[in-house]
Structures are given as structure tokens and as C-alpha cells.
């Protein structure tokens, strides 16, 4: 296109008028050509979405439930936006729309970066079709409108037209802004996804995205904390107004602010915001087009390869089958980001709990100090309930080598014991320090040991009996497995409930000890230790027997999930 422009512009003044006409024609033709493939890409995206419904019945049920949920949310949002039309306090509506709109657009930009979305319309997949870059860029951007979040966003953005329908021209302006805001969000998501897919192409980087995401959650929790300390009833709207006045100048909020500021009579500011919004969209388009052009000629990269000396955990653990499985599990817990997701959440739990209690002041005194540790251990004990699935099809080695179920089951539990026992010791000490009564340590140990052991025993059974699909090795920990059935939710829920039910005696005795008579603490300890030990031994022995019989079935499940 640039070459054409140069060629047309080259003649001198005499032909200026003619060349200007030619230029206009050329531009129109280029535009037409660029949009030529749009229907095709829309059909492709529809077919991809439809493909999701051609899977197992359970997945379709899940999708239908998700869709109903999405439609319900959308109806609520649209209803709210339409109702806002009749709220007399236009200033407050303005603030809320700007702040929420800016947050949504930012979300479209950031979420793909954090979660490393699996991109069905990755430009690189079209590299071999020889489609001109402009047509491809337009087509792929158009195709991405046909996704659930984008459709919800588009409908809500259109609903803001009703919100601002205080006059005909204001509604027209709102319509233009809605289109701008939707296009900006969708294109921002495209650019972010492409950049994520392109910059984070190596295995290691892919694995890190999820961890970065969790760290982000941890990092913004102070912000959430400070926001949650605000007395929203009294000062909420003034804070929203302050935020809105900042965000309306940001590229993310500008498009949402145009009709809002016009409605409250700030026409000059609105004009400037419109310029910012258009400039943002143009910049995103240029970035998107450049990314597509670059990605088409840059297939994929391979990361730097790290070398390790020695045998690592294998030289620490005994050279027996169970020791080998334990060393392998420990190496994986250390190297594979998919395992970290379940661990990284564990230190976040006490922060969230204590924050929540600090905010609402629901429980008086030092009682909250007793809550985090049992909940952390509950999730730790639960973390291995699908352990075999994380091996993927590599489980063939255990089947072929005739690994006994006992060696496999015990080996897989070692990492959790390595984490769990120090956690219980340190956690009990810290909890007792903040609670202020050393006797409670008995109950804490009873409850947490019970939870951990029941969890490990249960994991020994569920991981061989009911493996469900997880992200494949090397994928982002948050990548959607190819097929997730309702089985996953059932197994997850069931195993949590069983851990809690079997730990109930220890928990109940512990609670009685706190509120009725400290003598109950001893009962709690014994109840926890006995139930935990029985569950652990029973689970490991039972799981081992199942493992011995189910080798081929486990491999079959792994092959189907891959």
C-alpha cells in the first residue's frame, strides 16, 4: 500500500487533482479488499464456537450452564444501565460508568497477559495461506468479536446508549462511543493475546504466566484492602468521582467518558476525550497490524536451555521404587508450574481470611488467629487428589515397569509431607502466639494432622480411581484442558467434603475446647491422630490395590485427556 501511495504521489502539481482522485479510489479499493475476508473469518469463528458443543454431553451441559449464567449477568447489567437512564443524579451515573468501563477495558488488555489465553485465531496459524496482511488483520480482529466476553461487552456498551439517551445527538454520540469502546477493548485483547503468545512463546515463559498472575493477585491485595477499608456508605460516591476524573483521561476510560461528560455538560472535555479514544483505537490497530505482519514471518522461538548437574532429589531419596517416585514427585513440585498453583494459593489464604475478618469485624477477640492454619492444611492435603493426571501419558512408564501401587502411592505423598509437617509445626506455633493460649496447640495439631492425613489417604484413592483432565505438561497452569467434564467438579467437591467430614470429630472437639472446656483439646488431638492415621493407611493400601489393577485404564484416561 505504501508503494502504491508513493507511485500515485510522485507526479507533479499538474496531475495533483487526478492523483488525489486516484488516491481516494485506491484507498477505497484497499479498504474493500481488506474487509473482503471478514465474513469468512466470522464463519470460521462461529464454527470454532459451535465445535465446543460437539463434545461429550457433560461438557455441553457445562457450556449451557455457563452460557445461561453469562446471559443472566448480561441481562442484569443491561437492566442496570437502562435503569440508570431514569436516575436523576446524572453525575453519579457518569462516575460509575467511567470507572467500571475503564476497569473492563483494562481487564480485556491485562487478562490475556496474565492467564496466557489459548488463542484459536493466532495469526501464525494462517501463515501458510498467503493472505495479505491487511485482510488477515481485519479478519482476525473481526472474528474475535464473536466470543462470549466480547459479545457481553458489546451488548452492555450498546445499553449505555439508552443510559445516555437524554437527547438525540447525545444518543448518537453515545452510540459512536460505544462502538469505540467495544472496538478498543476487543482489539486490546487481541494485541495482548498476540503479544503474550509471541513474547511468552517458550515453555518456561508459558509456565510463568500463571505464577505472575497469582503474584499480581497478591500484590493488588493491599489495594483491595485499602479500598475495602473505605466507608463506602458515606464517601463512596465522592471517591468514585475522583477516580472517574482521573480515568476519563486514560486511553482505557476515554471512550466511556465521552457521552458521560457530555451529559453533565462538559462538552470541551468530551471532545478531547473523543480524540484520545480515537487515537487509542488507531494506535491499537497499528500495533495489531504490525504484530500480525511480524508474526506471519516469525514462526516460533525456542528458549534457552538450562542444564542441571547431578541427580538432584534422586541422590537424596533412597534408590528404591518408592524413593524414586518420591524424588520424581519432588522434582516436579519444584519445576512444574502446574503444581505451584495449588501451593501459591496456600499463603494467600490467611491474608484473605484475616483481611476479611479485619474489615467486617465479624468475630471478636483473637479467635481469627485459629482459622488460617486448618484452612491452609485442608487445601494442602487436598492438593494431590488428581496427582496421576499431571503425569499425562508419561504414566505408561509406571505401568510398563510394573511399579507396585504401594511404591507409587507412597512416593507421591512424600512432597506433601515435606511441606505439610513443617507447615503444621510452624503454623501451630504462630497461631498459638497470636491466640495467646498454648493449650490450643493440641487441638490445632489434631485437626491439621487429621486433615493432612485424610487428604493424603483420599488422594491415594482418587488420583488413581478418578483422574480428570488438567493442563498438559508445558502449558500454562491456567490453560483450559481440551476436555473438562463435570467429573472434575464432582471429584474436587467430593474430596473436599470427605476431608472435612472425617476431620469433623477433631474440629468439633477443638471448638468445644475453645468455647466450653479446655479438657476437650486432648480429645481433639487423639481424635485427629487416630482418624488421620486410619484414613492414611486405609487410603494408601486401598489406593495401591486399585493402582495395581487400573494401570491400563489410567493410561487410557491420560491418552483421552491429551
Amino acid at each position: 500500500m505504501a508503494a502504491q501511495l508513493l507511485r500515485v504521489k510522485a507526479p507533479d502539481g499538474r496531475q495533483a487533482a487526478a492523483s488525489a482522485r486516484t488516491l481516494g479510489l485506491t484507498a477505497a479499493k484497499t479498504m474493500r479488499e481488506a474487509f473482503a475476508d471478514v465474513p469468512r473469518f466470522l464463519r470460521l469463528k462461529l464454527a470454532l464456537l459451535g465445535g465446543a458443543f460437539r463434545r461429550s454431553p457433560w461438557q455441553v451441559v457445562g457450556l449451557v450452564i455457563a452460557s445461561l449464567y453469562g446471559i443472566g449477568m448480561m441481562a442484569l447489567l443491561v437492566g442496570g444501565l437502562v435503569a440508570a437512564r431514569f436516575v436523576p443524579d446524572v453525575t453519579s451515573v457518569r462516575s460509575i460508568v467511567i470507572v467500571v468501563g475503564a476497569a473492563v477495558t483494562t481487564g480485556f488488555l491485562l487478562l490475556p497477559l496474565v492467564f496466557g489465553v489459548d488463542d484459536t485465531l493466532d495469526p501464525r496459524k494462517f501463515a501458510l495461506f498467503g493472505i495479505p496482511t491487511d485482510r488477515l488483520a481485519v479478519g482476525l480482529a473481526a472474528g474475535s468479536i464473536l466470543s462470549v466476553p466480547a459479545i457481553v461487552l458489546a451488548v452492555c456498551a450498546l445499553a449505555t446508549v439508552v443510559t445516555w439517551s437524554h437527547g438525540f445527538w447525545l444518543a448518537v454520540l453515545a452510540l459512536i462511543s460505544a462502538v469505540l469502546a467495544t472496538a478498543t477493548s476487543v482489539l486490546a485483547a487481541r494485541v495482548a493475546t498476540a503479544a503474550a503468545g509471541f513474547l511468552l512463546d517458550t515453555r518456561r515463559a508459558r509456565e510463568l504466566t500463571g505464577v505472575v498472575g497469582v503474584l499480581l493477585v497478591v500484590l493488588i491485595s493491599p489495594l483491595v484492602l485499602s479500598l475495602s477499608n473505605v466507608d463506602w456508605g458515606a464517601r463512596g460516591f465522592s471517591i468514585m468521582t475522583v477516580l472517574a476524573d482521573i480515568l476519563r483521561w486514560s486511553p482505557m476510560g476515554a471512550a466511556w467518558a465521552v457521552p458521560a461528560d457530555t451529559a453533565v455538560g462538559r462538552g470541551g472535555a468530551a471532545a478531547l476525550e473523543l480524540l484520545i479514544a480515537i487515537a487509542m483505537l488507531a494506535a491499537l490497530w497499528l500495533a495489531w497490524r504490525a504484530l500480525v505482519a511480524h508474526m506471519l514471518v516469525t514462526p516460533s522461538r525456542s528458549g534457552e536451555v538450562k542444564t542441571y548437574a547431578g541427580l538432584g532429589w534422586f541422590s537424596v531419596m533412597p534408590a528404591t521404587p518408592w524413593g524414586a517416585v518420591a524424588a520424581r514427585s519432588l522434582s516436579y513440585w519444584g519445576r512444574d508450574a502446574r503444581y505451584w498453583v495449588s501451593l501459591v494459593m496456600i499463603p494467600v489464604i490467611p491474608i484473605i481470611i484475616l483481611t476479611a475478618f479485619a474489615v467486617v469485624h465479624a468475630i471478636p477477640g483473637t479467635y481469627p488467629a485459629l482459622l488460617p492454619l486448618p484452612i491452609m492444611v485442608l487445601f494442602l492435603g487436598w492438593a494431590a487428589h488428581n496427582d496421576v493426571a499431571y503425569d499425562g501419558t508419561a504414566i505408561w512408564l509406571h505401568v510398563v515397569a510394573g511399579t507396585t501401587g504401594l511404591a507409587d502411592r507412597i512416593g507421591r505423598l512424600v512432597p506433601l509431607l515435606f511441606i505439610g509437617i513443617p507447615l503444621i509445626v510452624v503454623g501451630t506455633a504462630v497461631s498459638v502466639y497470636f491466640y495467646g493460649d498454648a493449650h490450643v496447640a493440641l487441638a490445632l495439631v489434631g485437626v491439621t494432622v487429621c486433615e493432612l492425613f485424610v487428604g493424603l489417604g483420599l488422594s491415594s484413592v482418587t488420583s488413581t480411581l478418578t483422574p480428570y483432565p488438567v493442563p498438559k505438561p508445558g502449558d500454562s497452569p491456567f490453560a483450559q484442558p481440551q476436555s473438562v467434564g463435570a467429573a472434575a467438579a464432582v471429584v474436587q467437591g467430593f474430596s473436599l467434603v470427605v476431608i472435612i467430614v472425617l476431620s469433623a470429630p477433631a474440629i468439633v472437639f477443638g471448638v468445644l475446647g475453645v468455647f466450653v472446656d479446655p479438657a476437650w483439646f486432648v480429645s481433639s488431638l487423639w481424635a485427629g491422630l487416630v482418624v488421620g492415621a486410619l484414613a492414611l493407611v486405609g487410603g494408601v493400601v486401598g489406593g495401591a490395590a486399585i493402582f495395581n489393577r487400573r494401570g491400563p485404564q489410567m493410561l487410557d484416561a491420560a491418552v483421552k485427556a491429551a
Partner: protein
Amino acid sequence: MSSLPETPPEDGPQANPVSPVEPAEEKPASAAKKPAAPRAQKPRQTTARAPRSTAASKSGGTSSRSSSSGATAAKPRTTRAPRAPRAKAAPKAKPTPPPEPVPEPKPTALGIRQLYKRFGGTIALDGVSIDVPEGSFYGIVGPNGAGKTTMLSIVSGLLRPDSGEVVVHDVDVWKQPEHAKRLIGVLPDRLRLFDRLTGAQFLFYCGTLRGLDAGTVKARVNDLVAAFGLEAAVGRLVADYSAGMTKKIALAAALIHSPRVLVLDEPFESVDPVSAANITEILQKYVAAGGTVVLSSHSMDLIQRICDRVAIIVAGVVLDSGTADEVRGQKTLEERFVELAGGRKAAEGLEWLHSFSE
């Protein structure tokens, strides 16, 4: 190739008196980690295969190639016990000097009998029976989707058959799996490895899972790494390996417990020619020492070159099997295969392909 018959078969009787000496030699030698291969003592084969004693003396030599047989030598002697009776039977055959093919049937290393397997509506195996004699290099060929991988998965204990039985050295794979699995080394196709381990860790893992002690495993890992040329890669994660290197380390892992039967699904796929030649040599020595190899491949040339027996499977049925020469007759194996597999489709109807678009 050192395993090819270099000594005339008449040496057999001469070599025989040597073999009683060997165990005596072996005890002091075993401390040196590379004793004469115990397999060498079993003069099972009466045909023109390399006499055991020569193979052993060669492996006792220095070349790194011999390390695989050196590795097998380090295996505890207890697992050798079942072979003792056969060693007695062999001397009877010894006095017959003629080197011509003696039609005495060798014992079956791997018996596949009437295997049936169906997946939903498709029949993958429709009554497959194959008899793999001990010490043979058996090639399974067939078009895509013929059921080769299904059959090899059943043989290695990874897939349960609908009916039929698999017997490895008189042990039923599906009735006595623990025992059978010790006798088999497996290289599956298209299954992951535990690839978050380094190459050294992976091999060590495979060895200890098989119940070998740490010293044995470390010695064998070193030998295997040298034999497969993986020295530079042992410290890297298997996930970072190329496809060919992954194949090589998986093959090395299949050998680590010195199995009596190797079941290899596509062992040469994406392996470079030099490595393929190395692997072929390792496998040929293994067979010469009395081991049995069953492999599948799409490379007819390779099968014709290295396998002494062949089975052609099409659509879950064995269409032909036997020695490589019997199966191919006057033709090449490829011609015979194409003939059995339903012939080639004449490349018609693609004329537009020859009028190029731009």
C-alpha cells in the same frame, strides 16, 4: 559389525570347552564392572549366529559400543536362573556340525495368540497371532492404522485385549504381569516421558523403578549414555530434547533392566542416520547375545536390512509372517508389502496440480 559371524561355526564345539571356564573368570572380573556377559554361557543357538564367546570377549574389550552388553552383564544373576535348563539342552545340538539352517525350532520368546481388540465400532485387531522365536529380530510392518501400535501396546501391558493371550518366555503378560514386565523392555510411540527430569535423572528413575540398586543403575546409565551418544544432553531436561534425542533416551530407558524381549514401536522415527546405525548395532549385538527384538517401522528398507523375521499386518489381520526371505520371496519387502496392503492407487485426477497457479 562385530556381532556378525566372524568365526566359522565349526568353532562352536571348540568354543564350548571354554565356556565352563568363563564363570570362573567372571567372578574376579565382576568387580571390574565389565565381566563377560553371562548370556555368553548359553550356547542356545546352533545356527550361524555369532558364537557367544567371541561376542563376550569383544564386549570385554574397550569400544564404547560394547557398553550395552557390558550393562546387561551387570544384572544380578538371580534373574538368569530360568535360563539354566536351556543351557543343558543346547549341548545336544552342538555335535551336529553342519552350519546349514537346522530346522530345530527355537523356543518362543514372545507368543501372541488370537488377539482381538475393538475400539467402539472399529476393530483394531481381528485375531492376530504371531510367534517370535528367541533370538530373532522381528519386524512388524503395516500401513497407517493397521493395528501395529495397538498390538505392541497389548504386548507391553499398556492396553488390555478383548480376548487372546500374550506369553513372554512362558509367562502370561496379562495373568502374571509383575513377572512378565520384568522380562520386557518397552519403547512406546507417542506417549510422553517424564520430561521435567534431566536425561540422567530420567534414566536413573527408570532403573530404580525397575528395582535395580543405585550402583547398578549408575553404572548402566553411564554405559547407556555413552552408547547412545547422549553425553552432552544428560544435564538438560528431557522436555528440551529434540524428537530424535527423546527417542534415543526412551530407547536407552527400555534397555536399562536388561530385558529378554524388547518391544519397540517406531524406534527409528525422527532419529538421524548416524544414531540409527548406532542403535541398529546395539540391537544386533543384543540379539546376537540371545535377546529378542520386536519392532514396528514404516521403513521397508530398514526392516529388510536388519530383521530376520517379518510380519505384515493390514487392518488388524496378519497377512503374512515368517522369515524375511520367505515373506518377500523374489521381490523386495516393499513390493511385497504394497502388494499385500492393497496395492497403490494410480496417481490420477491431480492434473491441476501440474498447471501451477502462479
